[in-house]
């Protein structure tokens, strides 16, 4: 079998890399900052030793040089704040926060400055800052290196939050984020970086709009909502459900703030049942947010209570035997869906 000519497959990492490269080519006010995003800093013969811990920025320093592909000391508060200041004065910085748990050391800059400046200053200063960060368990990295936490950022007015689920959406959301005039945080799930995808990733630059969900699979019996990695889990579960004769719809949320309430509500009004699948901690989370939205806005349409499949209210364990129980998987989604369906 020959592959359809039009399909251009990239890995998640290649898609991000291509988006960064194209946006830097497009607009010279874009620059990238972070730890080891090149590596070998200050040694021209050793440059690009790493290209980022996940290799997302590999090769960029060769094209754009160390001013625009800027390795930093381990000073997240310092360089995140520097991103805010640069964004306020004509640049479009992309700041890499290696893991989302490191929010802890730079939260002030994101939550008190990036999120609030536009409002506090009466709309007169813009912060076109993009933050990219690694999320998710499943890599035996223990409690501090496996968090998801996008719910925390979504909580804060002034921030936009997007979660790509595939190479195609990653490339398009990166382009949108970088071109956006507000601070946008892109949450990249680390399990997605190791996965194979069949989607066609066009070579030319394109955007995926911030604030829009997509229907990853159409159906009529139940709505499964996924976010990033859990969209893949939902699609697997949907296969299982379809094999049992059900018609599941899968929404790939993509954007948490702004959130595409209309798409969620429309789907639920059709299917009358919903399972929200999320890897973040369960309390005060995007999963409760969606559940509340549906309960409040589609109350009369629901045939069954909204359901959530999330980890327990527990830090992420190291042991792979425990971690396997932690992350939502297709079996748990299928089980939850069947409870709602029956």
């Amino acid at each position, binding site marked *: 079998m020959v592959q359809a000519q039009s399909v251009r497959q990239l890995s998640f990492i290649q898609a991000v890399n291509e988006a960064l490269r194209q946006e830097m080519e497009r607009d010279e006010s874009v*620059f990238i900052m972070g730890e080891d995003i090149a590596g070998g800093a200050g040694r021209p013969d050793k440059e690009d030793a790493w290209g980022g811990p996940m290799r997302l920025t590999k090769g960029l320093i060769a094209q754009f040089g160390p*001013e*625009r592909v800027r390795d*930093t*000391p381990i*000073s997240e*508060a*310092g*360089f*995140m*704040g*520097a*991103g*805010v*200041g*640069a*964004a*306020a*004065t*004509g*640049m479009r*910085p992309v700041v890499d926060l290696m893991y989302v748990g490191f929010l802890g050391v730079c939260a*002030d*800059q994101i939550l*008190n*400055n990036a999120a609030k*400046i*536009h*409002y*506090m*200053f*009466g*709309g*007169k*200063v*813009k912060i076109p800052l993009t933050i990219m960060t690694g999320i998710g368990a499943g890599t035996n990295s223990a409690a501090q290196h496996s968090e998801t936490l996008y719910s925390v950022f979504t909580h804060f*007015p*002034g921030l*936009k939050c997007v979660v790509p689920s595939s190479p195609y959406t990653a490339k398009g959301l990166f382009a949108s984020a970088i071109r*956006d*005039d*507000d601070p946008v945080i892109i949450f990249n799930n680390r399990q997605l970086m190791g996965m194979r995808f069949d989607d066609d990733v066009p070579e030319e630059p394109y955007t995926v*709009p*911030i*604030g829009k969900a997509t229907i990853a699979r159409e159906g009529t019996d139940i709505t499964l909502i996924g976010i990033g990695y859990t969209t893949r889990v939902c699609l697997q579960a949907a296969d299982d459900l379809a094999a049992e004769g059900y018609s599941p719809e899968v929404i790939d949320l993509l954007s948490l703030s*702004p959130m595409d309430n209309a798409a969620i509500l429309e789907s639920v009004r059709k299917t009358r049942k919903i399972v929200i699948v999320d890897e973040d901690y369960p309390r005060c989370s995007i999963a409760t947010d969606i559940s509340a939205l549906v309960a409040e806005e589609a109350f009369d349409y629901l045939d069954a209570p909204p359901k959530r499949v999330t980890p327990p209210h527990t830090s992420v364990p190291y042991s792979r035997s425990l971690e396997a129980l932690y992350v939502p998987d297709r079996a748990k989604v299928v089980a939850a869906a069947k409870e709602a369906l029956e």
Partner: protein
Amino acid sequence: MVATHTDLNTDTLLWMYETMVVIRRFEEQARREADAGKLRGMHSSIGQEAVPTGICAHLRVDDYVLGTHRSHHHCIAKGVDMSEMMAELLGKATGTNKGKGGTMHIADIDKGMLGANGVVGSNIPVATGVALSAKIRGSDQVTAVFFGDGASSQGSLHESMNLASIWKLPVLFVCENNRYAEATPFEYAVAGGSVSNRAPGYDMPGVVVDGQSVLDVFEVAREAVRRARAGEGPTLIEAQTYRYQGHFGADDPLGYRTQEEEDYYEARDCIANLRAHIVGSGDTSEADLDAIDRKALSAVEAAAKFANDSPFPEDDELTTDVYVAYP
């Protein structure tokens, strides 16, 4: 517009004198507005006028200043419109920030005032980024960030000094050491009793200057700004100064400091000092200075009138400016 002064000529002296007097009158008026219940928790800069004045004398409109919770003097020295500032203090629609920011967040990007900031130490990394932006854009703009002795204990200062030093950024770290952070004495909180002593560890000049002498501040700033503009990197300046009032107005500073200390600093008042110097040096008469004083007072009165006469924001302003665009 703020002039850029490099020589200590009469123009410069008079600009500095007027700036300091305006700041003081502004702060007195702001305190009256606060006492009348029109705002709360205002951090007065009276006593510290010389520090931003001596620094900003060297800055262009397109250079940047970033401040703290106590920043009215930084704003005025950088050329922000006083009427809009006073309106901001009263939460009015005509304020610099449309009434949304208030006393701790005054900003005016067109004047290069990139904002006061209510979180102690928080603006230091932001300023470092502003300097980085100038460097990447290939501009020769200089950034000055002001912070207190208390703020020097925040990790943000040290991360920023390191970044600015390795990247040779055009930034002045200006510590206004007024000896207290709220009610905590400087000598208790700052190991070694000096902020500027930390600079050598970061391969950066660290200078102590008498913050009550605008002329001394002016001299120190000249070299720091020159260095920055020439791409030679950052400087840490520790200006020894004093706030005459309590931390935020309602507190009694004699609870934690002494009458003798207050008297000592008031006797070395920056405005009185400069006035004596100007008169002593000949060109300018007491009457000329009195005229400046009167002009300052009436400008502040006009600002207060403008602010009080201005409307509060419309209700729908509550939810605008959260985002540039939010579909």
